[in-house]
């Protein structure tokens, strides 16, 4: 039986458990003198039986799915001839992979005899596992369901237990998100620690030269491998700064226009247009930056006698800023709209003009939300990858001049990991260290955003 049929059966069993539990509680109620004699409503007893039937069985199912590959793997190795088992681990895992691929694609007919045998074993094992899983899961469901059913008594606090069960289910869902984050952070952290064992952390954080090329063979002439991250972070900051200089005023003013001045008709046209801007894939922005904006800036620079690189920070920053405008404007639009109309009325009623009202009353009242939104936009700019991959340079220049090419953290992470790489050279591991730093910076920004928002809240509430 495949897993989806199994799920359908389980669902049926659970529905049955609900009916049985409810029925038993009703039966007991009629003995004890009506539904009021029960501690909880009959449907709670049904629900409790359902949970007893479903949860243990689903837990078994989940554990089985996680571990069954591992076990089958081990059993398969056991079944292989002695001389294969004696191969070194990498070679062995390669062979196992071949066997599994051939089994999956059904192309083992011409393979060596031991592989054909192994494929047969593997298929048998998988089949057995499937049957066993079905049996065990259904058995567990029936057993625990029945046990839960026998527990039903008028005194049983079904309502409280169901409430608790739901609380735990909800809690575990939120833990899932947190655990995933923790998992990501830990994996990045461990790889970074490996990196820092090869390259001193001070060289990485304070070094001002970045050239991650290393000699692969001892006799090769190549880069010495310098891993100073400062040029990358300066480049990232420069491009993000340009992006914010474009996005914050434009986005904020667009939001003010839309929420304070625009008629309903204009609003209904402009808002969707801004949202289209938000829907353009970043890769499209990327080639817009690389193929349209960058040459334009270079040519304009040429006319006024400036030498502008064709991969200038300015081009990438400008386009990134345009990408972020809808982000800033829709966040600000929301907070500006949330400012109560009575505040505007109060100010207008005192004889102030609309722009005075906006500057002195509406914006201060909306400021916490706006600042929070801007900081979120900064995090977004720093983490943005595609535009800079296409429009920024690969050369790690340490400069504050927006007309020169710079590179960013995300660009370097991409170039470090693209292509065939060994996963234990400093060059590859550097990507994880960069990722970790980036994560710390954005985390810090988000933390700051929350702090700012809270501080202003206190002032205004």
């Amino acid at each position, binding site marked *: 039986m495949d897993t989806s049929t199994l799920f359908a059966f389980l669902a049926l069993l659970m529905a049955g458990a609900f009916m049985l539990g409810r029925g038993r509680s009703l039966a007991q109620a009629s003995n004890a003198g009506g539904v009021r004699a029960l501690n909880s409503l009959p449907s709670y007893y049904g629900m409790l039986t359902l949970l007893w039937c479903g949860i243990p069985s689903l837990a078994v199912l989940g554990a089985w799915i996680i571990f069954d590959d591992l076990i089958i793997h081990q059993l398969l190795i056991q079944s292989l001839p002695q001389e294969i088992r004696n191969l070194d681990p990498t070679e062995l895992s390669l062979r196992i992979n071949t066997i599994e691929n051939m089994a999956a694609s059904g192309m083992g007919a011409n393979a060596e005899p031991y592989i054909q045998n192994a494929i047969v074993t593997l298929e048998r094992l998988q089949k057995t596992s499937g049957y066993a899983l079905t049996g065990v899961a259904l058995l567990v469901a029936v057993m625990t369901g029945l046990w839960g059913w026998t527990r039903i008594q008028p005194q049983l606090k079904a309502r409280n237990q169901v409430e608790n069960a739901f609380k735990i289910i909800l809690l575990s869902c939120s833990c899932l998100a947190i655990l995933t984050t923790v998992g990501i952070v830990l994996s990045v952290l461990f790889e970074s620690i490996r990196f820092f064992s090869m390259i001193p952390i001070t060289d990485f954080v304070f070094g001002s030269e970045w050239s991650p090329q290393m000699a692969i063979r001892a006799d090769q002439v190549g880069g010495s491998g310098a891993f100073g991250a400062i040029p990358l972070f300066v480049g990232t900051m420069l491009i993000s700064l340009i992006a914010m200089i474009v996005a914050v005023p434009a986005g904020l003013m667009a939001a003010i226009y839309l929420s304070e001045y625009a008629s309903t008709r204009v609003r209904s046209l402009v808002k969707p247009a801004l949202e289209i801007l938000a829907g353009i894939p970043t890769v499209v922005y990327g080639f817009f930056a690389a193929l349209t904006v960058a040459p334009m800036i270079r040519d304009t620079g040429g006319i006024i006698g400036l030498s502008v690189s064709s991969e200038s920070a300015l081009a990438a920053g400008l386009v990134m800023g345009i990408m972020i405008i809808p982000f800033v404007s829709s966040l600000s639009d929301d907070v500006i709209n949330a400012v109560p109309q009575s*505040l505007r009325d109060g100010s207008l*009623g005192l004889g102030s003009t609309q722009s005075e009202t906006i500057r002195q*009353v509406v914006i201060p009242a909306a400021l916490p939300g706006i600042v929070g939104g801007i900081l979120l936009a900064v995090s977004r700019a720093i983490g943005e990858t595609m535009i800079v991959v296409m429009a920024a340079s690969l050369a790690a220049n340490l400069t504050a001049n927006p007309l020169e090419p710079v590179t960013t953290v995300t660009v370097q992470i991409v170039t470090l990991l693209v292509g065939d790489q060994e996963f234990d050279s400093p060059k590859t591991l550097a990507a994880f260290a960069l990722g970790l730093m980036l994560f710390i910076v954005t985390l810090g920004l988000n933390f700051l955003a929350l702090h700012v928002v809270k501080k202003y809240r206190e*002032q205004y509430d």
Partner: protein
Amino acid sequence: MEATASVDNAAQAEENKLKTMKEEVIAQPSVDDIQGTVGTPFVENAKMSMRNVNVYYAEKQAIFNVGLDIGKNEVVAMIGPSGCGKSTFLRCMNRMNDTIDICKVEGSLTLEGQDIYDPKLDVVPLRARVGMVFQKPNPFPKSIYDNVAYGPRIHGLTNRKAELDEIVETSLRKASLWDEVKDRLHAPGTGLSGGQQQRLCIARTIAVSPEVILMDEPCSALDPIATAKIEELIAELSENFTIAIVTHSMQQAARVSNRTAYFHLGKLIEVNDTEKVFTNPEHELTEAYITGRFG
């Protein structure tokens, strides 16, 4: 067959009974029949005069052909059941209705003979001359001081700190809030209690020294003590200012106003001296309202 007939009879009887009850309790013409206003809507030395005012929210008419004068240094109270258009009419008088897109105002409204709906007129000085206190307190997210200093600063009434301090203090004193806040002038205005916030809003309005003050249920959030203080303030202000006040409290109208205007479903039913309205109303609808038979 017979059963149905008896049911019909019973229903008929019930209906008749209801009809007579209605006639007993509210023996007055339907609003559709009301033409014009009884009493004395117009006065000699009018500060503001409104004639033939109609107000529409989109298709729906909220004010029907209302004419009313507010005399110099007079307090006019506006009363009437909820939704009868008191706020709407009040907001016409300093063009606050401009902020509502769908709202359309017709008729002639003048302040000292000057048409306030003249397209060439600038609403900013108009609103400085005709100030407004709203039904719900709406202090700005600024300090108490800055709330009161907001209007004077905007209108450039003064640019000397000492003078501004003085305006703030006298305004807060007049609104009888000074003693409560003099030690924390730089604390946020939103941190005050509801009643204090409302007095702050009143102080904010009088700091601009308008000629006319429009008050929309200024005491609906206040306790009796603060209400008494505000009423005292209104009496004091009426020496120099002209005041129109909307209120749901008949006693308040009786205490503070010279004349009282009774609105009903968007029509101005009766305007008379306050004493006359409350002791001997001319119109049945007014009488029904003030004796609490509906509304």
